């Protein structure tokens, strides 16, 4: 019987279990995670604060998932060392754990630059785990002034989650625009207006230079008084364990399309990895939930001796704020379609005859048709792209495509 160990019990880790079990119903699986909670939809932590879900419904694959799959889970235990030659792990408890196949599903960690005066700030939080959300829930009441550093989607999701719980929510970011990693200067202002109309205070192109007790001194010279501070500047892959063991690591752990690292018997999946972004034509951090899930499953299948590949990776994200839906996908190369109105925008990008990316704000109906064009690298001259541009539908794909997809099993 094979001994599988999965480090990290989140999306990639759970999907890895699913992948292993699709091939090997018997093997011994151990999941080790530093968190007290596992198998929950991490993006749901803001919805939890908003009251749109609860601890039971947040379970990603159901409360009995590990039991159903015969998995031993060690919570609040970290792996401190990976020894690929000896095929064993060292745990924070001091114990050693041997393995036949291991998968690093260690995700990412929030990082924080050194702000002057940050240490004495007592009520400061990150916003990446359920424990963070539970702590914020306790720390915030109707009078609390919240300051969030970072207007990326994590910071803004936190702001949305806290708006009705707090007295005020201010979000600052050195970038000139909200969600600057996903949106461009045409689309971002629509979101910004919407956020402000919904009660958030935005301070863009401005950030904290130092803290003086419960006051943040901004670059612009402004002062922001706060009770609770959330740092949501960004996340970085958790790759140290792999790097120490000698695996090839760039920004994330490098993996091939079977999710193998450069070390024998060691796989990696999810936010901790760096893998091929087919829309950019080069490896990148594809740190969103769908990729963690697809990669985890792929790794699991291969660990168990099956054969699977992950070769259509792109960045893609769908998120909403106070009812405004935002989707972004792929790489923003050359704009081939732009439509901007008061309420929304749509931008499509293409290069070398294939769609490489898009941004949608507002109308996101059937966006998956665009995503599929990117992932499948469909030559745009093989469909009636002039029609698809305006309205995503299957009509411009032609009869034989439809006969195959609508008339056959896919």
């Amino acid at each position, binding site marked *: 019987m094979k001994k599988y160990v999965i480090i990290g019990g989140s999306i990639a880790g759970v999907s890895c279990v699913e992948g292993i079990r699709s091939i090997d119903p018997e093997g011994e699986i151990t999941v080790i995670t530093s968190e007290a909670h596992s198998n929950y939809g991490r993006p749901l932590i803001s919805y939890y604060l908003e009251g749109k879900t609860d601890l039971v419904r947040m379970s990603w694959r159901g409360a009995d998932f590990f039991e159903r799959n015969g998995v031993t889970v060690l919570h609040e235990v970290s792996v401190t060392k990976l020894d690929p030659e000896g095929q064993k792990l060292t745990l924070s408890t001091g114990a050693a754990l041997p393995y036949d196949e291991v998968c690093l599903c260690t995700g990412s960690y929030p990082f924080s630059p050194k702000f002057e005066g940050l240490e004495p700030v007592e009520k400061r939080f990150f916003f990446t785990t359920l424990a963070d959300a539970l702590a914020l829930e306790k720390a915030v009441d109707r009078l609390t002034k919240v300051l969030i550093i970072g207007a990326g989607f994590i910071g803004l999701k936190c702001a949305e989650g806290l708006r009705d719980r707090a007295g005020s929510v201010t979000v600052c970011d050195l970038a000139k625009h909200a969600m600057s990693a996903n949106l461009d200067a045409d689309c971002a202002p629509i979101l910004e207006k919407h956020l402000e109309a919904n009660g958030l205070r935005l301070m863009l192109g401005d950030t904290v230079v130092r803290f003086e007790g419960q006051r943040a001194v901004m670059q612009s010279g402004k002062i922001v008084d706060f009770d609770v501070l959330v740092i949501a500047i960004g996340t970085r892959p958790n790759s140290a364990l792999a790097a120490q063991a000698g695996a090839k690591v760039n920004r994330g752990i490098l993996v091939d399309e079977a999710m193998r690292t450069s070390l024998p018997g060691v796989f990696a999946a999810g936010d901790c990895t760096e893998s091929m972004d087919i829309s950019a034509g080069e490896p990148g951090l594809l740190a969103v939930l*769908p990729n963690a899930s697809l990669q985890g499953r792929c790794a699991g299948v291969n660990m168990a001796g099956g054969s699977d590949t992950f070769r259509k990776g792109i960045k893609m994200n769908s998120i909403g704020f106070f009812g405004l839906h935002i989707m972004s996908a792929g790489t923003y190369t050359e704009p081939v379609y732009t439509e901007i109105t008061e309420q929304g925008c749509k931008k499509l990008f293409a290069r070398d005859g294939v769609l490489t990316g898009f941004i949608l704000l507002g109308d996101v109906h059937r966006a998956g048709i665009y995503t599929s064009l990117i992932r499948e690298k469909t030559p745009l001259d093989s469909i009636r792209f002039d029609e698809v541009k305006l309205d995503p539908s299957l009509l411009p794909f032609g009869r034989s495509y439809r006969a195959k997809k609508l008339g056959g099993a896919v």
Partner: protein
Amino acid sequence: MKRVYVNEEWCLGCHLCEYNCAFANSGESDMVKALKGKTLYPRIHVEGDEQITYAVSCRHCADPLCVRSCISGALHLEEGAVCISRDKCVGCLTCVLVCPYGAIAPGPDGAALKCELCLSNGRGEPACAAGCPNRAIVYEERGEESR
């Protein structure tokens, strides 16, 4: 597994499948009461132009991207059928972002709605296929082709 298949040569473009779907999933026993004067949220859609029409609904993909991508775990497999626990859905629309056929969309409450093959609404078989006057929509087993 039995799925809903569409033969566009036979589709009349009458949109009856949309009405039958909305009715079957309304929880009402009277069609007029269920549909009259209401915005409908059918899980099957007829599209096309003057010459061609056809209906699109969930393909119940063998390896469903939506199930893998759903951030809440609301989308799941039940013996091959792709189903949704709407009480878990938070309306993020990641499923809309990934479905290659545009077969999933939000309902009136913002949570996603999709074809569940009428497996749990008491119909026993898909209402769209059962009511299609020209048998352009059928519910049957076809070869599980590799993609």
